[in-house]
């Protein structure tokens, strides 16, 4: 579960996100939409405890991100916007390292690494140096890393960037299967609208740091005709906020 209340992030004279409030229940896969620079990554970075908010509260699994960051970090699998991989490590070495710092015990380490590698479709490149695998594989290694420890909450910043159409379909079906689990909450950002339609039932759209829509995908499409039109109308309208 993710609960956000009045979240604001200011950088000196620039406001990246302003007064965001939303709530995502377990079992939901929510698409976090918005044009580039809307504040999607900033929100995700706050939720994962990478940067602090200027105002407001954020709770993950009922635990406050600012008060008990370590507990939150144990529950969240996070794929940042730019894939965080060590080019000079093998895929296996990298996943084992991340598993260790996520507190996965030595006994389960090998099994867990194999499980996420299988799920993310990188099992056959495990012995290779990350430097020598393609961008698509690097992205999926990043995805595998987020799945380590089977976290209740997954926060994925543009999970299909850099993938070819076949890989995109693989990742989407992975996301659908993850969302099928009743205890899991998935928040994924993207600006590929087709992605949202393929994976999510609900969307939260932000533009200019504000939430401009938070509704079931079907409702949005019913109201605006299509997601593209909704995106164009809502995002453009909010591009120049009043204040």
């Amino acid at each position, binding site marked *: 579960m993710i609960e956000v209340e009045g979240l604001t992030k200011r950088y000196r004279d620039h406001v990246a996100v302003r007064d965001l409030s939303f709530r995502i229940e377990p079992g939901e896969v929510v698409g976090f939409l918005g044009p580039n620079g809307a504040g999607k990554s900033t929100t995700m*970075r706050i939720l*994962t*405890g*990478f*940067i*602090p908010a200027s105002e407001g509260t954020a709770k993950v699994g009922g635990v406050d991100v600012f008060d008990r*960051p*370590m507990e939150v*970090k*144990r529950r*969240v699998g*996070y794929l*940042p916007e*730019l*894939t*965080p*991989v*060590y*080019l*000079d*490590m093998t895929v296996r*070495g990298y996943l084992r*390292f*991340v598993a*260790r*710092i*996520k*507190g996965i015990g030595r006994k389960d380490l090998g099994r867990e690494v194999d499980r996420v590698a299988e799920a993310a479709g990188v099992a056959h490149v495990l012995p290779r*140096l990350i430097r020598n695998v393609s961008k698509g594989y690097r992205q999926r290694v990043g995805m595998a*890393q987020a799945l380590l420890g089977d976290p209740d909450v997954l926060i994925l910043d543009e999970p299909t960037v850099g993938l070819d159409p076949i890989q995109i379909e693989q990742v989407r079906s992975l996301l659908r299967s993850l969302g099928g689990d009743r205890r899991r909450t998935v928040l994924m950002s993207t600006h590929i609208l087709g992605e949202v339609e393929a994976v999510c039932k609900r969307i939260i759209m932000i533009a200019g740091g504000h939430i401009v829509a938070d509704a079931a995908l079907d409702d949005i499409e019913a109201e605006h005709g299509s997601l593209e039109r909704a995106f164009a109308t809502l995002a453009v309208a909010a591009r120049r906020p009043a204040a």
Partner: protein
Amino acid sequence: MTNLWAIARKELGIFFTTTIAYAGFGAYAFLMGMVFVSQLNRYQQATSIYLSRQRPDLLEQLNFNDSILTPMFSSGIWMFLFFVPLLTMRSFAEEKSQNTFELLMTCPITSWQLVLGKFVATASMIVVMALIPVVFPVILSIYGTSSGVSVEWNPVWSALLCMSLMGITFAALGLLASAATETQLLAALVTFALLLLGYVMPFLAARVEGDWSEILTYVSPVSHVTRGLQGRLLVEDLVYFVSVSAGLLVWTQRIVESHRWR
């Protein structure tokens, strides 16, 4: 502790999958070997000159430690000026440029575990490097005993200990520079500049008078390592290295931690 070791292990792994460790160790061993050979030649020349002049009194004063090993170790500390930035520059700067810093900061590890893990890995690399020249006194004690002169080991241990301690302190400085800067090149340059400053302080101290002279001499790492190289191991010097390292590590931890609050 598990997290700290995981970080240290990852760092060491990267040192050895890339060329950094091999290039650093190889170049240092080669240069120290050159210095050793040139000191050895000077020693031989001195021996033959004293023999031809029939000066047994001077000949008696010649020994491996003062004529070969101590000058060699002294050259070694100058090489640290170049090799330490090479080994420390990537520690934090590379994490930031590769975006893995975001991964580390969103995993359940503390800033201390991160800093100490990196410190353990980098410092052990530098200690291993500092210990490479132990082969030269070993060579001397195997092949050089026919002249009746032998290696005195206690000053050698003292020199190696001081070099290692100095290396550890420099590792902490390198980590600080790497944490405070965004690119590896900048981290290396800052480390190099600060170390160079430390190295020239004794020269500056010789030019000024009074308290300033004493302060500059005390602050410079060179003045603390020199006594150890000559075989004089002082508690004061050990305290200097340990406390400066600790101070630098605390500072590094503060910088890393500050990323969580910006």
